[in-house]
């Protein structure tokens, strides 16, 4: 492989990794606070994509307005799911909440099939993201350059919220010890709702860029990115936002490089995430920068 080709793959890997990172953050924040794998997260992403699609196709919104709308409505959907399905199970065994999450995930997928139909819809790539940048031999789609940049901006904002604001402090406190924090007069339900809102909005953003990258959407599109993003969250250390970004990047790069370096293994790309997951759980169950979880 030549230098420019390799660089090109590297950029592709960064793009994919950014998308995984955006999705993984919702997983990791919810897990950090509720110790729940929110299986429906990937399907919230799917819902976000359809919202953006309708925004563009039916209401002729510019892409950034459709994106903002998708993020806002996905945030609302995330909060509704939590309040309606997960909140009644806060005191129940964790497995019950997990089963419910799986149920909600299938509910959204099948509702998607009923409402939107099973046939994929084409997602029009906006003009800004649809031309080729060329530097010497290196040719890159503008989307692939912009996605990591936009992701970096969003994540910087998120890190600021989590580490520099009172809300973020409350989130971190709740993820440490929910019952103690409750005693200290913090409204934990508000914090949980906020977590779902933030995570879902980021997933919608990741989903919309995902849809622009492979320009089509379908009701089951959230399943695989969702699962892989969860793996990315575990990889980085579940409950840790910076870890989720790191895990997402590693997974994205690993997938792209697998395909680039070993083309005959390309078909196994979707299995790579799970092989990595098994390896990380065996070698370092707390993830790359995770902390020891109490029993």
């Amino acid at each position, binding site marked *: 492989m030549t230098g420019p080709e390799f660089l090109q793959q590297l950029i592709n890997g960064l793009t994919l990794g950014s998308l995984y990172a955006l999705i993984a953050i919702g997983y990791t924040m919810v897990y950090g606070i509720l110790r729940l794998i929110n299986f429906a997260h990937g399907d919230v992403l799917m819902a976000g994509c359809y919202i953006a699609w309708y925004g563009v196709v039916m209401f002729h919104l510019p892409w950034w307005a459709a994106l903002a709308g998708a993020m806002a409505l996905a945030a609302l959907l995330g909060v509704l799911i939590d309040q309606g399905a997960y909140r009644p199970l806060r005191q129940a065994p964790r497995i*019950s909440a997990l*089963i419910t999450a799986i149920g909600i995930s299938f509910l959204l997928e099948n509702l998607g099939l*009923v409402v939107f139909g099973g046939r994929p819809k084409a997602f029009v790539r906006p003009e800004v993201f649809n031309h080729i940048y060329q530097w010497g031999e290196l040719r890159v789609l503008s989307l692939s350059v912009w996605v990591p940049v936009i992701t970096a901006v969003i994540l910087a904002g998120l890190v600021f919220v989590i580490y520099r604001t009172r809300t973020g402090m409350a989130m971190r406190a709740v993820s440490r010890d929910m019952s103690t924090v409750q005693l200290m007069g913090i409204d934990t339900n508000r914090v949980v709702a906020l977590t779902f809102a933030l995570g879902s909005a980021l997933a919608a953003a990741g989903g919309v860029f995902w849809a622009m990258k492979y320009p089509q959407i379908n009701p089951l599109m959230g399943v695989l990115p969702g699962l892989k993003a969860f793996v990315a969250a575990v990889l980085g250390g579940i409950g840790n936002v910076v870890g989720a970004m790191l895990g997402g990047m590693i997974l994205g790069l690993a997938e792209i490089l697998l395909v680039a370096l070993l083309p005959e293994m390309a078909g196994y790309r979707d299995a790579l995430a799970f092989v990595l997951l098994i390896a990380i759980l065996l070698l370092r169950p707390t993830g790359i920068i995770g902390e020891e979880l109490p029993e």
Partner: protein
Amino acid sequence: MRLRLPARLNPGHLAPAHQTRRRDSLLTAAAGLGVAGLLWLAQEFAGGYVVHMLCVAAIYATLAASYNLINGVTGQFSLEPNAFVACGAYVTALLTLSPLEKEASFILEPLIWPLSVISIPLLPALVIAGLVTAFMAFLMGFPVFRVRGDYLAIVTLGFGEVIRVVANNAQSITNGPLGLKGITQLTNLWWAWGLLAVTLFVLVRLVHSSYGLAMMAIREDETAAEAMGINAFWHKMLAFTLSAFFEGVAGGLLAHLITTISPTLFTFFLTFNLLIMIVVGGLGSTTGAVLGAMLFTFGGEWLRVVEEPMTILGLHIPGIPGMRMVIFSLILVTFMIFARQGLLGRNEFSWRWLAAVFKPRRRP
């Protein structure tokens, strides 16, 4: 250590227990014969559709009861049965298909030797499929049972995905996305219900033995179970491989019922359906799992009306394909929120329970 007993063993206490056990065996045998009689009637007089659905119900019940052993009885929430069913289905089909069929199917890449020339009867093929699946579970168990709780769920789910990806890509064994066609329809009522009977015999006996007790102890409190001398790892492994064995065999029968298999049949969706069955029946109850499977199969058929166009009071409602799954998902979530213990809880159907129901109530 010899205990010095403060005891007068009460001999009158044991005799009735033996008597009821005998009564229960007789009742179970009679019920078995009754079911067999009904199946014979179905075979002789009911249409092909009813027979087909009865076969599906028995296979689902076998799968649900096996799945319940690891998820409900042992309390290790795992999400991989679709992988085991796939493994059993592929192994059985590859062993029973004739060399000619195989040559005709594998058009992109030829099937590897010696699978390409083998063709054996169904029974040994099923046994081998069960053993291969159990062995796969055994290998999986080593990494899988190093983690617990939701990590266990996601790792087993990952294994299921890996198996699906392998089935899609290992062209020279699985024929890739094209799958296997032309499998002879050998599964009939007797195969399907016979497998269910054998599975239930083994599982019920196991659950009611010291081994089943140890598995439940692990579910209740793994730390305490280990402190009481129970090797948690091996008992989880036992439950896992045993459930894999029966799921593999059931997969083989499924392949010989629907005659065409491909990787799309064995997605997480299959596991989700089994999960609904065991949750509705009551996680931890073997008879509950069977009940859940029956309700799922026949209820699902009945629910087909929602997907068909209909006219109510002159109002025409077009059919909504996919609506059934929406309803199933809602049922699962509703059960989790409002009736977490399912229909039977952790109780098992027993003749004693039935006798208690029919006994005339004492007036207050």
